[in-house]
């Protein structure tokens, strides 16, 4: 039986008038998609190896390269798309689970694209962020139910009530958990440096903390995941906050797997596992089988850092996210992270990434509403994660109830990522999702940090503009303020769950 | 402070620059026994070969002397030195007083002492005057054949120049190979082959016994030691050069083959320095001082001497034998000890490509490179010069040393960062 040859996903178009055979593409492609023939002096391309990362295209000095989706088309079919056929073909050949990287790419509704913001007209004047102070600062940590103050005291002694530790963020955007191991050391360095410069935080993910990064401690959230990689006393002391990872939006319900080949000497030391062994993160924490177990771990960690740092929990957005989040707050978490359907990953089975979980917009709305109804919204900060592409997404998330937002994919795109979704191969040409020394040098942390800081700065300025447009001068005033949002093109039930009125309806 | 420099070659001009770096005001006088303001002797062969014109032989711009406040005395030869009176006596009877003196009189050719030497048409090839005379003679007498006595650097450059004028040349060398002081047998062989291809006849282990003139006084033929007769109209004497120090006999300036100087380039006479081809200076690797008649050494010695004449105490790092010469279109570079005697713990690493005419050789001792010889491919030769000077231990690099891709990247990172000259590849 003639097993169908798999059509290459991409086609490399090379304009021979412009190609000067400088061989830059040939030298750099980690997938060997470009080949140089020294006899003829001509560079050709092997389309089947191209993953569509566009690294060659970006570097070609004459712009001779264009990467196109392979125009070889199957007969139009609304159900049997090219991808559906290819997946079946591939699985028939390999018998294996199809892996992928990054976030869900299927056309499920993006609720952010159905939400619109308000602006001031006449009754509530706008504020110009360039002329008046605009407060984007956010404090992560549980807030007490009430504050008692003593009058006439020195400022440090005014507050009578106990205030749990708070972490100030200069902007409500943080860098999400991307571990050293899934991405390169240069990539995590860029994130740490940028977090420090921008006054925000980066989450170490389950990779432990590399010695070079300890100086950035005050700008890190250290994660305690199910594999407990790299978790030791100094690790917990180093960060500004601790996050217990129960689940991840890209692969809810299953664990993680870093193949042994990617566990280099350095990663072995950072994660505290033997080099060359697979780093398996089990699906549940094997010491957390109930909400009481979680409470125990939360308080154990709080004790370990003597209550000086906030301890939070990260879960994936699933059907029962609201009651789960409620339980977590009751268990004493200082912040709760909800990772939605569009969250990214270094490697996950494609079918789980694409079909498990719920969108972050709905998740945040229901969690926020539920916590408010129960009167415990103040006890934990709410951080939303999963597919924030621009400042509008961020501000809408805040309006739906988030205190802050974790960005992942956007940060990597700032570092050069073109979302080719081949992170699991470890051959990332941009030097991001790889440990190969040939490739990791391509990411200069100075440039990386610069770009990330620029991104945060740009988004913060835009948020200020939008806030000003609404006549608001502090982000706090927008938090959970669904009155500033209106929905377009959404069904009745969606709007009810989001708690957002349809556009056109006034107060 | 009055500075006097005898000699206007590279050592002299470098000394001017050295003095001016530290003393912009002192009075400088340069004495030259030639009539031209400034020219580079190595370029004479280009003049002979018609590749350069007379006005293209300078190595410093025209305004060099004026700009540096130098009094240049041309056509004045220094014939005597009175160190107690601190003055130099010139050929025209006048004398010049000095506070500091630099002797940079260079070298003079070793004369051939054979019958017929005084015949018309016999030339040396070390001064511009001589080169010009030779060129005139070649033209005036429609010279078709020439004999060059001496297969060293000067002899070979003269040969090239003559071949370039379509004159048939016979080269006679006393040793068993050309360039015996610089090359090993294989390298000399490559050059000898190339010369033969250009139509030059080469006689080794031989020399000219007698020059025979014709009736009108010009050269008719030469007779070799083995009695063989070679018809020719011009003979070039190029058997060697000795430091020009005869005029210092009887003075306080002590000489061996050349003027003996210490690591500051001071001679035995107070206030008197020497630099360039005329001096005998410490070698880079120690050992007895030697005469190193090479341009870069002359320049460095002149510079250091100049600085020290102003009161400085700069140590000269010592001279290293090195030569770069392109013959018959084949570039060659030799540095250090290129032809060691068998045994004595020397190790040879070589790479030969006969088809391409490439021969590369490194001589190692104690794991360090002490000599390098490149024929046909001189790419990045200076890297090896650096390794020789820094006495870098080659260790496991030996296999890589002569590879095409060999470079600084193969050396330890610390070495790359702290280079002897001062500039590393700083990060």
């Amino acid at each position, binding site marked *: 039986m003639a097993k169908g040859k798999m059509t290459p996903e991409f086609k490399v178009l090379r304009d021979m008038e412009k190609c000067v055979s400088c061989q830059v593409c040939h030298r750099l492609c980690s997938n060997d998609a470009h080949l140089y023939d020294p006899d003829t002096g001509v560079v050709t391309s092997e389309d089947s190896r191209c993953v569509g990362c566009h690294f060659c295209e970006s570097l070609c000095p004459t712009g001779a390269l264009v990467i196109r989706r392979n125009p070889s088309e199957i007969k139009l079919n609304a159900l049997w798309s090219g991808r559906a056929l290819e997946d079946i073909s591939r699985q028939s050949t390999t018998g294996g689970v199809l892996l992928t990287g990054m976030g869900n790419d299927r056309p499920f509704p993006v609720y952010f694209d159905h939400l619109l913001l308000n602006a001031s007209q006449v009754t509530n004047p706008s504020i110009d962020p360039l002329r008046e102070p605009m407060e984007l600062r956010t404090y992560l940590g549980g807030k007490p139910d009430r504050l008692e103050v003593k009058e006439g005291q020195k400022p440090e002694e005014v507050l009578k009530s106990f205030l749990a530790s708070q972490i100030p963020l200069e902007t409500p955007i943080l860098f999400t958990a991307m571990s050293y191991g899934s991405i390169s050391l240069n990539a995590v360095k860029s994130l740490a440096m940028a977090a420090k410069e921008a006054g925000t935080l980066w989450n170490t993910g389950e990779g432990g903390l590399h010695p070079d990064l300890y100086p950035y401690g005050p700008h890190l959230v250290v994660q305690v995941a199910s594999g407990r990689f790299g978790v030791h006393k100094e690790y917990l002391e180093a960060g500004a906050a601790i996050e217990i990872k129960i689940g991840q939006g890209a692969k809810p319900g299953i664990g993680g797997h870093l193949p042994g080949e990617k566990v280099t000497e350095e990663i072995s030391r950072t994660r505290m596992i033997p080099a060359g062994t697979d780093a398996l993160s089990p699906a549940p924490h094997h010491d957390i089988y109930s909400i009481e177990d979680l409470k125990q771990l939360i308080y154990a960690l709080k004790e370990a850092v003597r209550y000086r740092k906030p301890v939070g929990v990260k879960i994936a957005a699933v059907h029962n996210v609201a009651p789960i989040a409620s339980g977590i707050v009751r268990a004493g978490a200082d912040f709760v992270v909800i990772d939605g359907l569009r969250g990214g990953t270094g490697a996950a089975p494609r079918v789980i990434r694409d079909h498990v979980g719920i969108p972050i917009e709905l998740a945040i709305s229901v969690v926020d509403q539920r916590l408010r109804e129960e009167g415990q919204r103040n006890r934990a900060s709410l951080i939303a994660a999963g597919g924030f592409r621009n400042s509008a997404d961020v501000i809408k998330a805040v309006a739906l109830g988030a205190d802050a937002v974790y960005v992942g994919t956007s940060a990597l795109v700032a570092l050069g990522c073109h979302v080719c979704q081949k992170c699991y191969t470890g051959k990332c040409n941009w030097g991001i999702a790889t440990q190969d020394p040939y490739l990791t040098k391509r990411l200069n942390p100075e440039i990386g940090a610069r770009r990330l800081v620029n991104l945060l700065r740009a988004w913060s300025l835009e948020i200020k503009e939008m806030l000003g447009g609404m006549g608001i001068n502090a982000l706090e005033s927008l938090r959970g303020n669904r009155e500033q949002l209106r929905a377009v093109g959404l069904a009745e039930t969606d709007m009810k769950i989001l708690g957002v009125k349809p556009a056109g309806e006034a107060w | 402070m009055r500075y006097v420099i005898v000699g206007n070659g590279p050592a002299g001009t470098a000394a001017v620059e050295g003095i001016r770096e530290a003393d912009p005001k002192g009075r400088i006088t340069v004495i030259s026994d030639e009539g031209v303001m400034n020219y580079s002797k190595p370029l004479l062969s280009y003049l002979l070969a018609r590749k350069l014109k007379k006005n293209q032989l300078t190595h410093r711009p025209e305004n060099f002397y004026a700009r540096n406040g130098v009094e240049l005395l041309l056509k004045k030869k220094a014939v005597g030195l009175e160190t107690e009176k601190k003055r130099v006596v010139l050929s025209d009877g006048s004398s010049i007083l000095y506070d500091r003196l630099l002797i940079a009189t260079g070298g003079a050719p070793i004369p051939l002492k054979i019958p017929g030497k005084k015949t018309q048409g016999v030339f040396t090839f070390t001064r511009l005057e001589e080169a010009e005379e030779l060129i005139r003679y070649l033209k005036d007498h429609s010279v078709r054949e020439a004999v060059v006595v001496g297969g060293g650097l000067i002899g070979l450059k003269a040969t090239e120049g003559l071949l370039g004028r379509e004159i048939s040349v016979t080269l006679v060398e006393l040793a068993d190979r050309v360039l015996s002081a610089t090359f090993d047998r294989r390298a000399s062989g490559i050059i000898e082959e190339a010369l033969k291809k250009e139509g030059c006849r080469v006689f080794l282990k031989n020399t000219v016994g007698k020059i025979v003139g014709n009736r009108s006084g010009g050269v008719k033929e030469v007779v070799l030691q083995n009695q063989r007769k070679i018809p020719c109209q011009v003979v070039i004497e190029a058997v060697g050069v000795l430091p020009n120090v005869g005029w210092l006999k009887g003075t306080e300036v002590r000489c061996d083959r050349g003027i003996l100087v210490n690591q500051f380039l001071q001679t035995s006479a107070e206030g008197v320095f020497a630099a360039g081809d005329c001096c005998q200076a410490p070698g880079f690797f120690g050992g007895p001082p030697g005469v190193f008649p090479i341009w870069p050494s002359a320049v460095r010695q002149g510079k250091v001497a100049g600085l020290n004449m102003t009161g400085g105490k700069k140590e000269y790092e010592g001279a290293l034998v090195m030569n770069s010469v392109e013959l018959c279109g084949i570039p060659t570079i030799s540095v250090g000890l290129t032809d060691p005697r068998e045994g004595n713990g020397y190790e040879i690493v070589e790479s030969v490509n006969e088809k391409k005419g490439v021969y590369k050789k490194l001589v190692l001792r104690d794991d360090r490179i002490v000599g390098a010889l490149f024929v046909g491919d*001189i*790419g990045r030769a200076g890297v090896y010069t650096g390794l020789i000077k820094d006495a870098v231990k080659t260790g496991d690099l030996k296999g890589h040393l002569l590879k095409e891709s060999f470079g600084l*990247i193969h050396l330890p990172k610390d070495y790359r960062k702290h280079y002897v000259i001062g500039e590393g590849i700083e*990060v």
Partner: protein
Amino acid sequence: MKKIFIHEEYCMNCRLCEVHCIVQNSKTRNIIKAYKGEYPKPVPRVLVEEQGYLSFALQCRHCEDAPCLEACITGAMRRDPESGAVLADEERCVGCWMCIMVCPFGVISRNVEGKRVISKCNLCQGEEIPVCVKNCPNEAIVFEEEK
């Protein structure tokens, strides 16, 4: 003076520095014409050394105590007083290769197909920043004041 400093940990061996050096030293300064139309193709004055995953771009260091300045027999090598760079006058060079013999970095090359004189980096005189530095995609070479 401003010099080029190397960060070898960021060099990805793309050799775009060599490409742009060739273009800068071509007659037309147009990359397609320089590669396809000019013969001989100009020689790049920067060379990338590589060994395994280590690589870096190397060009004339414009040394303070430059041995090439002393070795030149025609005065073609001279120091530019303004920029401090060591410049090689290709018109004056006669191809004696003395400078190649003494340069410990091996960054002077013979322009064999062209004029049979030397080729060496001149810090892109006339440009604000050398083109190799400008076009390095990863800032593996930078143009900074000496400290």
